[in-house]
């Protein structure tokens, strides 16, 4: 394997390219028109155009990607996360073109991509499952019967769902009829498949997931858990390892469940087995993500591994050969996802030019960014612009470093959720590790970020300075030319120079 194409963009493409170069492989980027000057293109060895900005004409365009890969004579393709990373059809097309797919076999992606099939695999593996309907619900009568047997509250889910789409909590029987119709409609529109099923709803659930690596020779290892309970509308916001819920005993059961699922599925490459856990530490299988996760760096910081390098070796047919230290994670790590979005406007994404950017550095801090100062964040794609990851000998040190890192961070020109993360890292509930997936829904509102009187005074000072300097520079010129206005303007220009 010498030439590897990265079928992605943004921070994950940058992250994969870095490892490819570390390994001495030729890194090959692909790009859409608005991404011609994107960081992943600038950092790759080679780059090829896919098409216009629209994802389905570029990063989601399977025939085009295969054409480019063939023309560039690549040996392997890394799909990153999102886009086509969990698309079995794409993985198959790559394999059919005689190219190595850096991920699981297409059939495994297909099986685990269907939630009902995945549930069946987990059941065979003896993993705990949330009590639920046996399979897809045939009709309303069956839905009513299953719901009564299981008892409320319940979760209604689309079989083909994912990413928080196509699911709804039902508190009572009165909500069943309309919810069934709604979720079916959503599922049909979003995934082209309207089969739905019911599960018992776990109150105050945690989202805990297992990072696993599996080689093509039947070896599977567990590399610790990640707690991704801090979510906003089913989207992860902060991830950490280890989970504050876990004892060594829970972790051992958890590792066994995850590894058994991977073995039963015939899993190969890096994968994540997701579970929900109740406050007592009982956990239930949720789904398998057949790709590298956004939050993989927290695992890398405590294990010292480069998961992308391991993915490449596995795809190359090599046996897992991890250093012993990787199997006993050290310390704690936490990740904040920095999005170009405005927490005060319902987290509306914000596109535009990054006018100022200061990413944090220093002890225990890793920053994976996909943007740079002066880059125009395109409106076509996910607004994730960077990830800040902090490591510490223990959780308290990791969080202290994260708080410091967020204080250092400056993103201007586009809105960002940096201030939101500062609020979150100062939250007593987070500090105590008392988290669940509904936490943000209960605690966050725009008022959480309201300006303190001190901040308001600062804003007034800055605005006054601006108004004063502007007023000075536009004062009418006195007869005779060399008036006070010019003098003032020069004075200000002078001062700007000094500041540089």
């Amino acid at each position, binding site marked *: 394997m010498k030439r590897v194409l990265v079928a992605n963009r943004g921070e994950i493409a940058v992250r994969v390219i870095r490892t490819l170069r570390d390994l001495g492989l030729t890194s090959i980027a692909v790009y859409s028109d608005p991404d011609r000057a994107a960081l992943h293109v600038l950092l790759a060895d080679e780059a090829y155009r896919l098409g216009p900005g629209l994802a389905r004409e570029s990063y989601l365009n399977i025939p085009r990607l295969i054409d480019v890969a063939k023309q560039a004579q690549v040996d392997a393709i890394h799909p990153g996360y999102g886009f086509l990373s969990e698309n079995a059809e794409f993985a198959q097309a790559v394999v059919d073109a005689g190219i190595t797919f850096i991920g699981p076999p297409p059939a495994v992606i297909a099986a685990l991509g269907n939630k009902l099939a995945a549930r069946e695999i987990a059941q065979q593996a003896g993993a705990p499952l949330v009590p639920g309907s046996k399979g897809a619900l045939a009709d309303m009568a069956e839905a009513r019967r299953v719901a009564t047997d299981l008892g409320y509250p319940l979760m209604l889910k689309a079989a083909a769902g994912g990413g928080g789409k196509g699911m709804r909590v039902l508190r009572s029987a009165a909500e069943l009829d309309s919810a069934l119709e709604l979720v079916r409609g959503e599922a049909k529109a979003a995934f082209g498949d309207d089969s739905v099923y019911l599960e018992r709803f776990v109150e105050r659930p945690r989202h805990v997931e297992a990072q696993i690596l599996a080689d093509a020779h039947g070896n599977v290892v567990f590399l610790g858990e990640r707690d991704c309970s801090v979510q906003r509308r089913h989207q992860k916001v902060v991830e950490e390892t280890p989970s504050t819920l876990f004892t060594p005993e829970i972790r051992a059961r958890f590792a066994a469940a995850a590894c058994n699922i991977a073995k039963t599925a015939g899993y190969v490459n890096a994968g994540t087995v997701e579970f929900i856990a109740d406050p007592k530490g009982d956990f239930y299988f949720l789904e398998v993500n057949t790709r590298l996760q956004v939050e993989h760096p927290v695992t890398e910081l405590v294990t010292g591994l480069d998961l992308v390098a391991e993915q490449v070796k596995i795809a190359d047919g090599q046996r897992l050969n991890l250093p012993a230290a990787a199997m006993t994670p050290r310390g704690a790590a936490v990740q904040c996802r920095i999005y170009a979005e405005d927490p005060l406007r319902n987290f509306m994404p914000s596109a535009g030019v990054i006018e100022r950017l200061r990413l944090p550095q220093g002890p225990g801090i890793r920053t994976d960014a996909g943007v740079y*100062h002066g880059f125009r964040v395109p409106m076509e794609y996910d607004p994730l612009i960077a990830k800040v990851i902090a490591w510490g000998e223990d959780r308290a040190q990791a969080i202290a470093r994260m708080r410091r890192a967020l204080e250092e961070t400056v993103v201007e020109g586009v809105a960002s959720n940096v201030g939101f993360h500062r609020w979150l890292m100062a939250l007593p509930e987070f500090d105590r590790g008392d988290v669940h997936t509904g936490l943000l829904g209960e605690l966050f509102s725009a008022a959480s970020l309201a300006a303190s009187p001190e901040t308001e005074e600062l804003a007034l000072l800055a605005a*006054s300075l601006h108004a004063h300097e502007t007023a*000075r520079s536009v004062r009418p010129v006195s007869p005779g030319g060399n008036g006070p206005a010019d003098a003032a303007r020069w004075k200000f220009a002078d001062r700007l120079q000094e500041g*540089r």
Partner: protein
Amino acid sequence: MKFWSQLGARELDIEVKVEARHLEVDTGERRLEADFVPLPDGEVYSLLVDGKVHEVAVEDDGAFIWVTIHGQRHKVAVRHPLEKTLREVRRADAKASGEVVESPIPGLVVAIKVELGDVVPAGAAVAIVEAMKMQNELIAQQPGIVEAIHVTERQTVEAGQKLVTLRPAS
């Protein structure tokens, strides 16, 4: 230099003095002082207030001054004292003769929130104009009845362009 300022819901008459790198703002109640130095990349200042270190970025869209502190944007108005008088006159005027809601900024009309003949209470949003990636609700200052709508959704407008005319709600 004297200014009239709006900060959140408060209105303040302030006096601003700039001497070399020292800034002084007298609000009547408080005297704020800062040492300042401009930084590169736009209008950005490092401020020292009572020894505490702050960084602020300033943008002026013609209608308001936006100050970014720790990633959060704050809207502040600092205007010539005459504007206060002007606004009071306009308000009195509007009460008697109805009101024309104008866009204070160039931007895109993303929504018209009223229809012809609607009875609009004071403080209700009549339109939303998006500018600089921000959606701004434009508010009726006085109660009124929608007499005319001058723009359509998705239309770009200039600063000062009429959006909606309200006649007095008898």
